């Protein structure tokens, strides 16, 4: 036995905190800018790089990955070392992780305003940056698991389980959702089309919320709340139950973003059911955190750290109640595409994530600099400013969202739409956007006050690295179960039998399925009774205790838990035989001009305000036309269903208005839609489409199953020119002169295609009849 002094690497923690504060301010500032633009579109100053639809992804990426990401890494590095009683395994990997992550953020800040985007929400960064994210994430994972392997504390505290869940699941989500076929260094197409892409995207999107914004922050809460309250966590048993149920259930919730859409109904129902059930494990975490303060509630009055942590948990509870509520189909029918969803997101982001970051920063920074917080009063002022800001923000958007949803549904006594003009609904909620902006600015002001306070604290002290003295024992042989013992356990055999039988049930009839189910339940009962009757060795460690001491086994179990939902939901849609018709007028690939126009649409971020998904609801079909069917999207790489309507749905836009209307609308939206807050996209009349990329794009799409023939690829430029000339000639008749190779012509071509078949003067040459794409829908 020997005593060893371990010095923690707190330099990396300090760096991540600084980055979290800086990028948090940046993310909120961009948020304030785009909130201003929603009220006054002129705030983009006519600069393409500042237009709302390009800045919104910058805001979301900065808030999630730059602000919460850096804050979370700070908390993880601080707590992991102390819970393991070991320094991070590699200073070099820590440095690579930190600087690599900041470089990724800078790359995002440059590429997104330039319009270099995949258009998939929270995964907008193009493929070279996706590769960089994978590399840095692997560096982080190696550093983390290596530290666990070198730990001087045998069992893994609950916070560490949450970090393991984060690392493993984010890796799976990122890799699958980033599967793209590159065209150039700055352009790629998703390998999944239409409905599949939507499902994969929101399996990813919701679980980015789950495993980037929730699980690591819960882990941080499990460390810092007891630390700040000087009380142990309320119930460790509750943490075990809520952890496993949370990580298992969360993955299934993705389809709640796609209710009433063209996604198959069984997937929608699964998403809804699991989302509602998710309320329970989420509130398990809330209860555990809150009740940790039992006997110490007086600290809420005196300690700003506790104020922030408790308020964070309160907003967490609110968001995790509101989320399941919004996942109910009937509630979702009102709320989807409205500002209510934005309000929900921000109560979580500002309340849960923002307040947890603030509380942990206020706790860590004085200790990392060997001093006291510079101004407790300023921290209190920050708390009240931020709380008032969130309340203004969220309540304004609740009212705006519900108002807008109700206005979309409203009918006159004779059954016509009460508000046929979409702009009317925007004008009605504009004052609420001003309240939202006020709330956001209050929150930002509080955040800047924190930045000042923490800077003054750091300057008043000196960097200090934490230390601990550990007694390192010689490892002694502990009788542990062998693999042979494990595979003969009744539980294991039961699971194996259930999995094998599952493979056969896919083709079974209902009665066979019921019979097998009954047999299995009887077998399970028998197994349980036999199990209960066995004499037990009560001195041996329990199975969960064993698992907690084995990070690798724990990680494998966790991987099974998180993969289950993804496999159950994604595999049927990707590998099932095609369930939709592959022939028909609308089931034709985009022409070269329409494809170029689609790429302009995704570059400019039109999907940020306009949906392309008419739901199976009367309010949608009455306003926009027949509901959207899955076969209409079979060649959409990526899908463009959108998630918010600040403008009307566009899925049946094709043929609704003449070319001149679209040209005028893009140059000056208010010329066709008085009162609209859409920005002008006048630069699309100046920018030229790069003709040399047409063939390359079509070849890339061929690889993911779009049936362009080689003849069509070779004749792309000619086909483009012919179709462009028809649009240009039509505009010229109305007195508008625009060269054929401008982006606006392509964009008009794409918009006129929406909801219809090809609009080319002559069809694209085909070598053979189109075959179903890879996998089918």
């Amino acid at each position, binding site marked *: 036995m020997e005593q060893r002094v371990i010095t923690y690497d707190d330099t990396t923690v300090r760096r991540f905190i600084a980055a979290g504060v800086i990028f948090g301010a940046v993310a909120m500032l961009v948020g304030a800018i785009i909130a201003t633009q929603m009220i006054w579109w002129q705030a983009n100053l006519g600069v393409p790089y500042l237009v709302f639809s390009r800045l919104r992804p910058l805001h979301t990426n900065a808030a999630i990955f730059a602000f919460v990401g850096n804050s979370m890494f700070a908390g993880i590095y601080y707590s992991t070392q*102390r819970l393991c009683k070991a320094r991070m395994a590699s200073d070099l990997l820590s440095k690579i992780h930190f600087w690599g992550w900041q470089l990724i953020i800078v790359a995002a800040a440059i590429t997104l305003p330039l319009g270099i985007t995949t258009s998939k929400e929270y995964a907008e960064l193009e493929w070279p940056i996706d590769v960089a994210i994978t590399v840095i994430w692997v560096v982080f994972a190696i550093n983390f698991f290596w530290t666990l392997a070198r730990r001087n504390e045998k069992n893994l*505290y609950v916070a560490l389980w949450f970090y393991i869940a984060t690392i493993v699941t984010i890796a799976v989500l990122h890799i699958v959702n980033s599967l793209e076929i590159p065209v150039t260094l700055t352009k790629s197409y998703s390998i999944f089309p239409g409905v599949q892409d939507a499902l994969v995207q929101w399996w990813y999107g919701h679980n980015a919320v789950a495993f980037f914004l929730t699980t690591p922050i819960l882990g941080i809460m499990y460390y810092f709340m007891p630390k700040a309250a000087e009380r142990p966590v309320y119930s460790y048993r509750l943490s075990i139950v809520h952890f496993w149920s949370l990580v298992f259930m969360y993955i299934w919730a993705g389809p709640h973003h796609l209710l009433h859409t063209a996604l198959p109904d069984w997937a929608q129902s699964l998403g809804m059911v699991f989302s509602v059930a998710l309320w329970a494990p989420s509130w398990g975490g809330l209860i555990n955190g809150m009740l940790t303060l039992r006997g110490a509630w007086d600290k809420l009055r005196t300690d700003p750290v506790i104020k922030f942590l408790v308020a964070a948990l309160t907003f967490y509870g609110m968001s995790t109640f509101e989320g399941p509520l919004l996942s109910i189909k009937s509630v979702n029918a009102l709320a989807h595409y409205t500002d209510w969803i934005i309000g929900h997101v921000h109560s979580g982001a500002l309340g849960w994530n923002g307040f947890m970051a603030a509380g942990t920063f206020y706790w860590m920074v004085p200790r990392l600099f060997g001093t006291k917080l510079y101004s407790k009063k300023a921290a209190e002022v920050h708390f009240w400013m931020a709380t008032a800001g969130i309340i203004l923000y969220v309540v304004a958007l609740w009212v705006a969202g519900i108002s807008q949803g109700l206005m979309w549904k409203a009918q006159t006594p004779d059954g016509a739409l009460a508000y046929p003009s979409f702009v009317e609904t925007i004008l009605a909620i504009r004052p609420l956007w001003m309240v939202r902006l006020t709330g956001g600015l209050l929150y930002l002001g509080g955040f800047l006050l924190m930045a000042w306070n923490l800077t003054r604290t750091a300057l008043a002290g000196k960097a200090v690295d934490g230390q601990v003295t550990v007694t390192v024992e010689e490892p002694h042989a502990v009788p542990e179960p062998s693999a042979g013992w494990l595979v003969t356990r009744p539980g294991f055999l039961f699971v194996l039998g259930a999995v094998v039988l599952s493979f056969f049930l896919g083709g*079974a009839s*209902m009665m066979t399925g019921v019979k097998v189910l009954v047999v299995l339940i009887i077998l399970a009962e028998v197994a349980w009774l036999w199990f209960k009757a066995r004499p037990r060795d009560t001195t041996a460690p329990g199975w969960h205790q064993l698992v907690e001491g084995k990070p690798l086994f724990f990680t494998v179990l966790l991987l099974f838990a998180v993969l289950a939902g993804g496999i159950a939901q994604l595999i049927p849609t990707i590998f099932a035989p095609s369930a939709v018709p592959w022939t028909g007028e609308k089931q034709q690939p985009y022409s070269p001009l329409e494809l170029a126009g689609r790429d302009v649409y995704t570059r400019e971020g039109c999907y940020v305000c306009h949906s392309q998904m008419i739901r199976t609801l009367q309010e949608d079909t009455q306003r926009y036309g027949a509901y959207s069917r899955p076969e209409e999207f079979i060649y959409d790489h990526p899908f463009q269903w959108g998630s918010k309507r600040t403008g009307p749905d566009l899925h049946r836009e094709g043929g609704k208005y003449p070319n001149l209307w679209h040209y005028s609308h893009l140059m000056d939206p208010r010329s066709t839609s008085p009162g609209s807050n859409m920005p002008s996209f006048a630069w699309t009349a100046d920018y030229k489409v790069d003709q040399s990329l047409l063939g390359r794009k079509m070849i890339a799409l061929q690889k993911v199953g779009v049936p362009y023939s080689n003849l069509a690829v070779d004749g792309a430029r000619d086909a483009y020119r012919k179709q462009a000339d028809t649009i240009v000639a039509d505009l010229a008749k109305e007195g508008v002169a625009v060269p054929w190779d401008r982006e606006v012509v392509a964009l008009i071509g794409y918009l006129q295609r929406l909801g219809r078949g090809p609009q080319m003067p002559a069809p694209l040459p085909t070598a053979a009849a189109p075959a179903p794409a890879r996998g089918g829908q």
Partner: protein
Amino acid sequence: MNVLILQVFVSLMLVLLAVLGLLYSVKHGDHEHADRLSLLPLEDDEGD
């Protein structure tokens, strides 16, 4: 319809397994060690 049979079956099996696991843990007194673990964040470090 086949997908539904499969999914209902798999879901029920997973729930059953989870319930069995929980009952086993509770019966076995598997969480007694948890009292010490919950004190981990409170152990004094020289820098905290």
